[in-house]
């Protein structure tokens, strides 16, 4: 029997996946079509959602993209019943005419099951090799040996800072105390990042198994998953998976007949970005305001309820079982000298093919953007890529040959971060971008450290006046001075990295700042107060549409005559520019 898989991650659902699913279900039931319909997670190529894959008895498949309910009939009729693929809708597979470059350079470890298995079925996870790693280590390895394997693999924490996972586990293992905790940080808060959500939605058991192995290595018997409440589907799938695993005896007491006990609980976050910081996360689990505290003591010594605690993020845990089964050497064989394995990125912004990609470390930024992402949307020019979210920075297009590597990215002033990769083109103003991120961190500052609470506010005010055309000479220096003070006088990662977006844009796009301040111009034509709207006499047809939408009544002109904008009265809202059907209005 053939199988039909439909990608119902959040990306698929937002693109209308539920409706396609319902249409498939109805058509299959109505015509009694002999086919198995399965739900799966994010397949990666989100730009082509809704995705439907038809798999033949021999395992070969065709992936259909941009599926809508009205396309369902033909796919069922022609491909499923009559083995005649609908060529023009196929995006990947045996009958695809298009070259498959989106997946060619990817290497899937974390996402090994995403979009392939049914995330709600523990049996499918087991059939794909799941829960073998935990059984293997329970039988063959001491906790110290597990830590050795992870150390040897070179795996670094994928949450952003890139600390060696094996070291972290060892600190927790060696900390005195009988009661220890394991925490999975699934509070993915960077705007523009959706790696962890897709992993949790597409393959929750791989994260659970990683946590079990971590718990064994650290000697913990209780675990928490701290997950954003804004990810309802991930929360639901996790709950279901924990329930299934407990039912099978994989969680609970005497796991797989060993002496190991483990209980995993879910804690839903309540929407505070700073809770991604480990001490703030612990405070939040304890039911308090999520404010970071001084380290040391590190959570490995004194964490949740004062007990030794190990925290890793979703992607880190999802790597663990693969490393145990395939060996540390196989993992360390991928990547660069300092960065091993793969990294998942959420590719978004002005990119032609956005989605979830997993690449071996050492690939260059250009390879990701052009070979995988298909370049920039609408044939615009690639300007910069933002990595690491509000803690990261903008890497200019001229550095496109930069390799994905913790050290090399840090040298640019950006950070690897958790994996958000937002691509910008020539129409993106870098000053405005810096303002955007600073507004975010300003908003999310918990208020504990003066320099973060007030310093970011002052920086934001300076950026606001620069983009409003009220920038003053000396503003750049003032920004740099404040950035330096914030960096050195705050206790947690949020404050210490908050100036990064400003510093990197100053480093690579200083001329844009200067143009805003000195010439009162926005080179990207993005900051409205610095724009001048004018009507082109040869294109204006005198349709009067712009004059009618102008809220300031700044546009005058007779019907069928060329119109004119009164620059004194213009409030630069851009409504005329958007409304004009003849491209007769230009902004400069």
């Amino acid at each position: 029997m053939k199988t039909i898989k439909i990608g119902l991650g959040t990306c698929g659902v937002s693109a209308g996946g539920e409706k396609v699913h319902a249409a498939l279900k109805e058509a299959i039931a109505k015509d009694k079509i002999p086919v198995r319909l399965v739900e799966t997670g994010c397949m990666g190529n989100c730009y082509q959602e809704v995705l439907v894959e038809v798999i033949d008895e021999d395992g070969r498949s065709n992936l259909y993209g941009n599926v809508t309910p009205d396309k369902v009939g033909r796919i069922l009729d022609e491909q499923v019943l009559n083995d005649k693929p609908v060529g023009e809708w196929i995006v990947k597979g045996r009958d695809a005419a298009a070259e498959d470059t989106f997946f060619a350079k990817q290497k899937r470890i974390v996402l090994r099951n995403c979009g392939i298995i049914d995330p709600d079925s523990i049996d499918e996870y087991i059939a794909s090799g799941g829960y073998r790693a935990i059984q293997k280590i329970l039988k063959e390895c001491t906790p110290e040996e597990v830590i050795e394997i992870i150390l040897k693999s070179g795996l670094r924490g994928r949450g952003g800072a890139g600390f060696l996972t094996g070291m972290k586990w060892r600190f927790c293992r060696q900390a005195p105390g009988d009661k220890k905790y394991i925490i999975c940080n699934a509070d993915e808060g960077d705007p523009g990042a959706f790696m962890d959500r897709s992993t949790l939605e597409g393959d929750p058991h791989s994260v659970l198994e990683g946590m079990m192995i971590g718990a064994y290595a650290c000697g913990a018997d209780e675990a928490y998953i701290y997950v954003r409440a804004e990810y309802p589907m991930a929360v639901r799938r996790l709950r279901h998976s924990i329930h299934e695993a407990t039912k099978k005896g994989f969680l609970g007491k005497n796991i797989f007949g060993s002496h190991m006990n483990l209980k995993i609980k879910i804690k839903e976050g309540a929407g505070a970005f700073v809770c991604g910081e480990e001490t703030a996360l612990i405070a939040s689990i304890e039911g308090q305001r999520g404010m970071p505290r001084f380290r040391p003591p590190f959570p490995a010594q004194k964490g949740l309820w004062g007990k030794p605690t190990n925290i890793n993020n979703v992607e880190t845990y999802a790597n663990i079982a693969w490393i145990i089964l395939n060996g540390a050497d196989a993992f360390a064989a991928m990547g660069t000298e300092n960065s091993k394995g793969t990294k998942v990125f959420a590719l978004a912004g002005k990119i032609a093919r956005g989605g979830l990609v997993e690449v071996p470390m050492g690939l260059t930024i250009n390879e990701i953007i052009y070979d995988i992402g298909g370049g920039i949307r609408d044939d615009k020019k690639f300007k910069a890529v933002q990595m690491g979210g509000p803690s990261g920075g903008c890497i200019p297009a001229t550095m496109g040959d930069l390799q994905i590597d913790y050290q090399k990215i840090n040298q640019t002033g950006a950070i690897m971060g958790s994996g958000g990769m937002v691509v910008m083109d020539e129409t993106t103003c870098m000053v405005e971008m810096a303002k955007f991120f600073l507004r975010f961190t300003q908003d999310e500052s918990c208020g504990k450290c003066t320099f973060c609470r007030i310093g970011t506010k002052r920086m934001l005010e300076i950026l606001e006046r620069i983009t409003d055309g009220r920038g003053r000479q000396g503003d750049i220096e003032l920004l740099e001075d404040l950035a330096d003070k914030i960096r050195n006088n705050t206790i947690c990662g949020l404050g210490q990295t908050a100036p990064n977006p400003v510093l990197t844009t100053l480093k690579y796009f200083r001329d844009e700042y200067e143009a805003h301040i000195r010439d009162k111009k926005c080179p990207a034509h993005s900051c409205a107060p610095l724009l001048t709207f004018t009507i082109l006499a040869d294109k204006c047809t005198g349709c009067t549409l712009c004059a009618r939408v102008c809220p300031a009544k700044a546009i005058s002109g007779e019907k069928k005559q060329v119109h004119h904008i009164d620059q004194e009265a213009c409030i630069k809202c851009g409504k005329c520019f958007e409304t004009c059907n003849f491209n007769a209005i230009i902004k400069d």
Partner: protein
Amino acid sequence: MTPNDKLKATRNKKGLAGFKIDLWNYEGEKGALIPLLQAAQDTYGYIPATAIDQISEIVGIPAAEIYGVITFYSQFRLKPLGKFLIKVCDGTACHVNGSERIAGVIEDELQISGNDTTEDGLFTVQKVACLGCCSLSPVIMINDETYGRLTPKKVQQLLKEYKSKAQKPQTA
């Protein structure tokens, strides 16, 4: 008295209607404040003052401190929501694809500014950091429906549809 009994007793004393006790599986474990607040919000749509008092009694944390926790987290609301909750995504991807313009159109159309509810109680607008469907940007969500690849014109059209939907008498 177990915490759950205590909870039932409090409810009976205050005689609150619509208080879904089964949601509140509070067994006296540590760190239950946030889950309790989440349950209260699930029940009422926001956290009313009476719920704060009740939770305070159950967990033994002063109401002022609970208020501090509520205002720290962006998820919690102290005011009821409008009939339609519009979440305007301002994640990085949506931002570079023009979410500010989208937010501006919504504010203009509904005559409100920032995160607020319209006077008729129909719409609540909330700017959110990321809805996680970056490849469809710019995106908004109205209740549970997601609308992607928006333009100012599409948004105006959408709001018009929702307004007329609200005016039509509800059919069973």
